[in-house]
């Protein structure tokens, strides 16, 4: 019966292309959304992951950067330096704001860096300088390209003009980008020279970042200290929580499209062979054996659709970076498992209606010429 399902599926090439293509596109929607959000999750923590810091110290109960504000007194820097295991302490100022280029406004994390900061600065320089001086900034290369900004041009950040002296890579995502200015400029613009946002700490090698972070929290009041891994994880969780509803809705849409396409194709495929199923019934095939044909046909379609969907998303993940878009698609095994599972559910559901039809077929119709 599996052979019959196979032949039935491949006999009508047009129907095969439509059903497999339709399922592939629907699954592509789910897969690419997952891949985009996986990429965004990865990109959104790019600064934290590449900062070079082992520990992030923030205002008490602040555990991430995205959509958060942290203010800690600069005066605690010496206290932090005195904690056992701390090798380097670098303060940064941070705010979520805009990089304005002409009439374009690009959402950005604005990072204020101390002069010659060993950690927390640009980690992948595309061109120019990586350390901003007074009234200077380093912005993301793809943002600059999209806004036709070149080295030496000026952009507006926090209401002040800054000269672009460098372009960075890996500092833009679908949500925003990162712009680096000097800590002095940032403090001057904020008018609060004694306050910083975060302290970035490098520990002595061989020490556990979590242990040093715990020590920091116990010795210094009013701060939360997290290892880079924990801080990054918190950041991803926040983004994930914010995007879960969107992903769920889009996944549901993809699922429904896939289901509708498959259900329609399996239904019409069975309907077009109504008489042949009647003949098989008349010859002695049991309903269960005929259901196997329908299910096998549906499962083969979705397996092919799933394979095609994966190929599509792999192609997309290769093409998108070449287009210079601040987007990366990350295909995770868990996504493949999820979409694979979704495909199987689609196949099973799409077979229900045809199975109900077949169970009602009257085998005597073969003698009636219907």
């Amino acid at each position, binding site marked *: 019966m599996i052979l*019959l399902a196979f032949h039935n599926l491949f006999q009508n090439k047009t129907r095969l292309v439509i059903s497999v293509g339709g399922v592939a596109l629907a699954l592509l929607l789910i897969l690419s959304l997952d891949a985009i959000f996986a990429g965004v999750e990865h990109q959104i923590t790019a600064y934290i992951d590449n900062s070079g810091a082992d520990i992030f110290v923030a205002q008490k109960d602040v555990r991430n950067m995205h959509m958060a504000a942290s203010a800690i007194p600069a005066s605690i820097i010496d206290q932090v330096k005195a904690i056992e295991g701390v090798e380097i302490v670098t303060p940064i100022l941070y705010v979520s704001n805009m990089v304005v280029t002409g009439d374009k406004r690009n959402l950005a994390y604005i990072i204020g860096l101390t002069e010659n900061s060993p950690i927390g600065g640009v980690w992948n320089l595309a061109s120019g300088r990586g350390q901003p001086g007074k009234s200077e900034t380093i912005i993301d290369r793809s943002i600059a390209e999209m806004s036709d900004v070149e080295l030496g041009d000026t952009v507006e950040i926090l209401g002040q003009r800054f000269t672009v002296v460098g372009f960075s890579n890996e500092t833009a995502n679908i949500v925003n980008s990162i712009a680096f200015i000097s800590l002095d400029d940032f403090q001057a613009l904020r008018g609060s020279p004694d306050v910083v946002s975060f302290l970035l700490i490098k520990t002595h090698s061989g020490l556990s970042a979590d242990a040093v972070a715990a020590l920091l929290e116990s010795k210094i009041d009013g701060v939360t200290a997290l290892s880079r891994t924990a801080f990054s994880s918190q950041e991803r969780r926040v983004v994930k929580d914010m995007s879960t509803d969107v992903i769920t809705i889009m996944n549901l849409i993809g699922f429904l499209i896939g289901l509708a396409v498959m259900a329609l194709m399996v239904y019409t495929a069975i309907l077009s062979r109504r008489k042949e199923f009647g003949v*098989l019934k008349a010859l002695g095939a049991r309903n269960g054996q005929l259901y196997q044909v329908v299910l096998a046909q549906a499962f083969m379609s979705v397996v092919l659709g799933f394979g095609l969907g994966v190929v599509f998303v792999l192609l997309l993940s290769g093409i998108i970076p070449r287009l210079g878009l601040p987007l990366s698609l990350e295909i995770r095994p868990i996504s493949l498992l999820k979409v694979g599972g979704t495909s199987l559910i689609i196949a099973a559901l799409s077979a229900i209606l045809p199975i109900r039809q077949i169970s009602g077929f009257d*085998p*005597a119709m073969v*003698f009636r010429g219907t």
Partner: protein
Amino acid sequence: MTDTTLNVDHVTKRYGSSSTEVTAVKDVSLSVKPGEIVLIMGPSGSGKTTLLSMLGALLKPTEGEIHLNGTIISALSEKHLPDIRLKQFGFIFQDFNLLSALTALENVSIVAELAGMKGVAARKKSAELLADLGLAGRLNFLPEKLSGGEKQRVAIARALINNPTLILADEPTANLDSKIGHEIMRLLRQIAKEQNRSVVIVSHDQRIKDIADHVLWLEDGQFKEIVSMAIDPVCGMSVEREKAFHLSLNGMDYYFCAKGCRDEFAADAEKYQQTNEASF
């Protein structure tokens, strides 16, 4: 083992109820012996299809019983019928009803597999059967690539694959030209006689009378007249036994279309007996 393959005992089929009730088949009785060919003829709407569906266990009679090899199949529950249809019946349809996506070989072997035969064995047996029917060179052809006669041969192979005791044929020559139709009917007769299988044919085709042992006329759901047919051993014509010229010789009955044929036979009976045995 019973002496009749099929025994239809006062079968009636009614559709609808009260004012909308229609009686499609009325109190029909019939028996078919092993190796016997019964042709059921009749006008459209006479109940032929309903009767054939009941004989094939595709429809249950309202009244009466249908016995197949001693089993009352009309009383069997729905769950037992697929097995009966698969193993006891061979169906041959007017428009062949081959599965369009499967090759000739697969069309036959799938029925063997439905009956529980393993794939390789089913394909081997199907290939042998198709080869016996002259289709050795067409095993891997899709139905659309076969001629009408070839399709009907595939359908016959499919009907025979599970060694049925009864073959039910619905207008088997309707979509075939006269030459091919005649070949198909000779083939069915050969199968019936050589393999001792019973055959019930429903048809409008008068030519099928030539190969039938009994011809039944169904009209308004009832058999109007049962005519026993025989083949004139001299000229080969199909003749109605009751109206034919008759001769009993050595305990055998012979029927002839004309006195001349009877006289000719009587003059050299041995010659015609040999010829008669060689035909069909």
